[in-house]
Every structure is written in C-alpha cells, then in structure tokens.
C-alpha cells in the first residue's frame, strides 16, 4: 500500500455557528476519492473539494483543532495534515447587550407577521412595506417574516424596504453591532440588500443562499429541517447614531426574498 500525500496549507476562519476551512489540494497525480475532515480527532465530514464548512456549531466561540486526511481512489489514507486551530465566532447576541430588537434569535420565524406561509398576503398587509417602531410596533403584526426582493412576482416584482425605528438616549460610547439572522433565504437569488442608518448608506449586506423553504416553514431547528439558516453580524460605527429617533433601513433592490429569524442592535459591554 502506498500512502497518498497529505494536503498542505490548511487554514480556516470562524463565522457565526460555522468554521470555514481551505487547503491546497494534492496534485492531479493522486486520484483522490475524498478528503476526510477531522475536528479534535473526530470525523466531521468528507469532501472532494479543497474546502469545507463545519456547520451547526454553537453561538459561543470554541477553538477546535482541525486536520485533513487524503483518501485516494484505492482507499489508501494519507498521514494527517498539519493541524489548524480555528474558533467559531461568539455572536453579539451572546456577548452584547440588546439595544433594539425585533423577533427572537432562536432559529424560528414563527413570532413574525404572516409566518409561516402568508407571503401571498404581503402586498395587501404591507402595501407601503414594513415600517416598524421598536417599543410600539409588535412583531406578529408589523414585521413581515419575509423581506421580498424584485425577483418575487408575488410581491409585485419591485424593490422592497424594511424600516426599523428606535430611540437612543445618547450617541453610544462604543460602536454598536448589528445582528441579522435568517432562518432561510432563496436558494440561488438571496443576493443582497442596501443598509442605511439615519440616511447614511453603510454598505451592502450580502446574504447566503438558502433552501427556498423558509417561505413556508418557520422552524430551522428541528432535526431534518430543510431550512438553511444564516447569520450576519457586523459593527456599525457609533458616529452613525444620534440621540433620540434613529432609523435603520434594509432596501432589497436585487434578487429574491430573505426569511428573518430576528434583527437587532447590540451594545458592547
């Protein structure tokens, strides 16, 4: 038995609930069956690509030791690659203090308006799109479970906006963190939305493609749920904010819908 070569260059980066690993594949001279990926010595998956995403991790950061074994066409196994220590990120919903939120960060969208499958009523329930005031509005009545995009015929094939209003007693002392969790999104057209805070364009939020199931199913947490949740968290500079009324807007001007889990701003403690 000849051992195939081990891969080199294993490295990774942490995200919310995931760790993304990449490496340099062995040359084509080795006919690869697959790469077996290990975390702390346990097999977590097999892939034919020099790339693997470790999913289903917790919301609190944990450092794990990853390694990869090359399995060739004959079933021979390489030595373990050099290990890479990578931590998933701790969510700001764990590390921060909520300032203003809509929905609960729990993998479900069932507390939101029109959930689980009322999307066809969106044009009549939200003819001027979502305009939500934290502290006054209620999720079940005022925050649609989906944010449609221009690719959605059922929502008029046009751009849509979600406006989230909240008060601050003062300009925050540190930057705030935005958490936008999705239970699912369209499988190929999740695309992006333009994020604006108090009239200032902050940038585009790029959404991960999901499974196109969250328009009819609200729960991503039960075993076998077909939904593909994703998590966006990013800092918002403190200078964007002002005392009194603030407004955050998501403008979906490309692609299709996203399905919310929850949205919120968190202060650093």
């Amino acid at each position, binding site marked *: *038995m000849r051992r195939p070569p081990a891969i080199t260059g294993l490295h990774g980066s942490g995200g919310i609930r995931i760790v993304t690993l990449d490496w340099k*594949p062995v*040359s*084509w*001279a080795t*006919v*690869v*069956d*697959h790469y077996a990926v290990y975390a702390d010595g346990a097999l977590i998956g*097999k*892939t*034919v*690509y*020099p*790339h693997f995403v470790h999913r289903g991790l917790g919301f609190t950061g944990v450092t794990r030791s990853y390694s990869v074994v090359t399995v*060739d*066409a*004959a*079933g*021979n196994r390489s030595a373990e690659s050099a290990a890479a220590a990578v931590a998933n990120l701790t969510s700001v919903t764990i590390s921060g203090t909520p300032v203003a939120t809509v929905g609960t960060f729990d993998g479900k969208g069932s507390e939101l308006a029109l959930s689980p499958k009322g999307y066809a009523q969106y044009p009549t329930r939200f003819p001027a799109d979502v305009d939500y005031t934290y502290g006054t509005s209620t999720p079940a009545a005022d925050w649609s479970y989906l944010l449609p995009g221009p690719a959605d015929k059922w929502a008029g094939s046009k751009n849509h906006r979600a406006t989230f209003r909240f008060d601050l007693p003062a300009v925050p002392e540190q930057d705030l963190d935005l958490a936008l969790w999705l239970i699912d999104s369209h499988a*190929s057209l999740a695309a992006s939305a333009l994020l604006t805070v108090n009239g200032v364009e902050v940038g585009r939020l790029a959404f991960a*493609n999901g499974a196109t199931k969250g328009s009819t199913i609200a729960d991503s947490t039960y075993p076998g749920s077909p939904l593909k949740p994703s998590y966006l968290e990013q800092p918002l500079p403190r200078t964007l904010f002002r005392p009194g009324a603030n407004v955050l807007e998501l403008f979906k001007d490309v692609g299709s819908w996203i399905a919310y889990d929850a949205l919120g701003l968190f202060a650093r403690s």
Partner: protein
Amino acid sequence: MPSRRTFLQLTGLSAASVTLGISAPATADATPARPIPDGAFALGVASGDPRPDGFVLWTRLAPTPLATDGHGGMPAVDVPVQYEVAEDSGFRHVVRRGLAIASPELAHAVHPQVAGLRPGREYFYRFRVGTQLSPVGRTKTLPTYGDQFTFATASCQAWYHGYFAAHRDIARRAPDAVFFLGDYIYEYGIVAGDNLWRAGVAVGPEHGVEIETLEQYRLRYSLFKTDPDLQAAHAVAPWFMVWDDHEVQNNYGAANSLYGVPPELFVHRRAVAYRAYYENAPLALDSLPQGPDSRVYRRYDIGSLARVHLLDTRQYRDPLPVDEADRVSEQRTIMGAEQEAWLYDGLRSSRASWNIVAGGVVLTAVTDDRTEQWDGYPANRRRVLEAMGGAGTSVMLTGDIHRHVASELQLDERTVGVELVCSSVGSNGDGTDTDTYAKDWLQHPNIKLYNARRGYVHSTMTRTELTTEFVNFPYIQADANAQPNILARFRTPVADPRLEAL
C-alpha cells in the same frame, strides 16, 4: 512526479495497461492470492468501443455491490481476472484468452482490449475470478463493408423513478449495438416518499444525499447497475456511450456548476465523476481521465455504411448565454473549437452513406429559451448542419428530454438528415402520452412525433434506408413487466432524407 500521460509515454502501454486493468504480465498468476467472496460479478459484464477487429470488455468485481466505501466489498488488493472470447455461446471455439489485473485504484474494474478478431461477426465472452464464472456476454465486431446495421438508443435511466422495461426489451431484440446518450446515473439524493418511485425497493441513508465524492459516485453506479435488465442490455451488444450532465451534476457545463460551487472547486468534483464513469463503462483507455479532463468524443466506421461520431457537449461548452446577443453570437460553442474541427473533418472525409452523430442534448431548434440544449448555441448548430449538409445523410441521436421526438433536420430549406430523440428509460416515471411541453415542439412542421412516456428507439440501417421504431411502455413504476408498444415507425431514404410515417 510525472503526470500519468508522461508515465504512459515513459513506460509504454503494456506496463500501464497492467496497472489500468487491461492486461497482465506474462508471468502473472491467474489465481487470486486469497479467495474472493462469492458473487463477484454482481454488476454484470459489458462490451463497448467496437472495432472491425475487436472491442473492449468490461466487468467490475463487487461481491457486495452496495458497500458504502464504493469498493464493492473487495479486499484492497490486486486480483487477476481471466477472460475468454469465443465464437459460440458454449465456448467450444475460444479465440482469445487473457488476463487482466483488477486493482482497487479502479474499484476493481477491468477493461481488456480484444483485437485481431474477424469483422462483422458475433462473439461471446465471459470472465473468471478464482472459481467464479461471470455471466456470458454477447458482442459484435463492426463490419468492414456493412449491408445492414441495427441499433437501439436509450438515455436517462433514473433508477429510482421506475423499472427498466426498455432495457429488458433491448436485450430481447439483441441489436448490433446500443447507443446510450447520457444520464446513465443521477447525482441526486434518493429519498423514499420523495423521488423514490420504483415500487417495492428501499435504499439506505447513504443513498439519500447528493453524491460528491468518488466513493459516492462509485456507489451510485453500483446501485443502478444492480438492475438485471440493465445488465442484460449491456450483455447483449456493444455499447456506444455518450455522457450528459447528470454523470456529474445537473446542468453543469465545463467547470461551471449551477449550484454555487466555484469553478476552481468544481473541477475536483468533475475529476471524481469522470473517474467513476470510466470505471463503470466499457470504454477504451483513451477515455481514462487525466485529472479533471477526459476525452470521450470519438469516431467509428461501420464499414462504408455509416460513420459514427460520438460527441461530448458538456466538457467544453460555453456558459449559459447572458443575453440574446450572447446567445446568437457566432463565437458561441457547445462543443469547443477543437471538437468542432474534429467533427467537421470527420464529416468532410467520410465516404459512408450515413453519418450517425450521437450527443447528449437535442440539436433541433425548438424554442429560444431552451438554452441548455443546442437552442442555446445556434451558431454552433448552424456550423454542424452545414457540415452535415456536405456529407452523407446524417442521423442525429440524442436524449435528455425524457420524451420521444422525431425531427427532420433543416438547413435553410433543405433537409440534411433526421434527429431521433429517445425518451428516458426511467427518468420521470410512468409518464403520459402528451403534456404541456408538446406545443413547443409540435408547432414546428419538421417535428413529426412527440410522446412523453418512457421507452427506447430501435433502428435498422441499410445502404438505402433507415427504418426507425419508437417504442414506449404503458408504465414503469409498479414493476418491470410492462409490455412494449410500438408508438410510431418511420422510413428515411438515404437519398432523400425525411421521416415517412409507416
């Protein structure tokens, strides 16, 4: 380390052919070092790539075909496999005996290349490993002249959608050759209550996910190849095999996946998918993949009766068009420049009465939005039709659409040949005679048949005419026993190509 191609050049074919399951050293022991578990030939036998003096034989040892590591229950050692070729099914007149080494690198597949036989005649073959004998296969060499040639065409055998009555009937008719036009396997997860429509079967959870690794592709071939009617069709005639998308992934093209896998990653998937295809098909060594590439477009001469051109319309295709100007661009190609030049050379130099061109997707113009087939590459289609127009009458064989379609191939006002699109063997289950897509096809006066049931096509080619039967089945999901129905018959004169209903 030298590439495999360099390795072949350095060591010569004979050494390489040992490691690649084609032959064995003269001194090799024909007895396995240890016994092989019973049922080693559970995936059957096959032949393909016929020539006037020989063909490629195939088998893959797999006593436990559905072992989840893709190795079929074989020990991870080299195993000698004997084969013999005879003029009679009783093996009284054996004309060739040989030995090939089945190795774990190729999932214990062997591809012996038999040469030096007589043209245009029937042969029988079988394998032996230890004390186990394989089923007997029948095959044929190609003729050097060719008065008549019979062939079946089939495609799209989603095992989980139904039984393979089409293969059973092909085996009964024992044509001179079988053209299989792609979607030999499907990559999708197979899930009861969802897409598992073949009544009375169950599959384990290892079959319930989209395949990606070599062990998963190997296992998928094993699952489909356990079907006895598919094995019977392989064992009855040499196969000309063409691939389409599902041998890798739905609607892929070149290095482009439609499912968000970037090209620099997707080539690794293509490499294992092509590898598993080679391992499971009676293909000559020319088609052994080199990394993520595999040359499977190739040519045969059926005497001076017909020249056969097998196309690859997947590996070299341009991406889906970004807009109408892109779609109709003269530069667009579904074949790639090299293969286009090869086809036009082959058509130009052919002296045969007929040209059989076999590909994965439909050539005939249908609608501008069918960009996955040649409707997405109209400039390439026109170049092909022009080349066909300068050669003997063309017969285009395609599948992919799970429908029987018969079409006259038109270049401006002239008919340069016919296209015979075979329905699926399994994909889409029972089917119905017509459906909502029918109007897209039947709006064209050159399209003479449309039917949405499962089946195959049988053709008889002579030096003056082609007679074609479209065969379908009333059902396929409940069991394998549906009786064939001859849906339509057409006659195509070589001197005046058209589809004349019989």
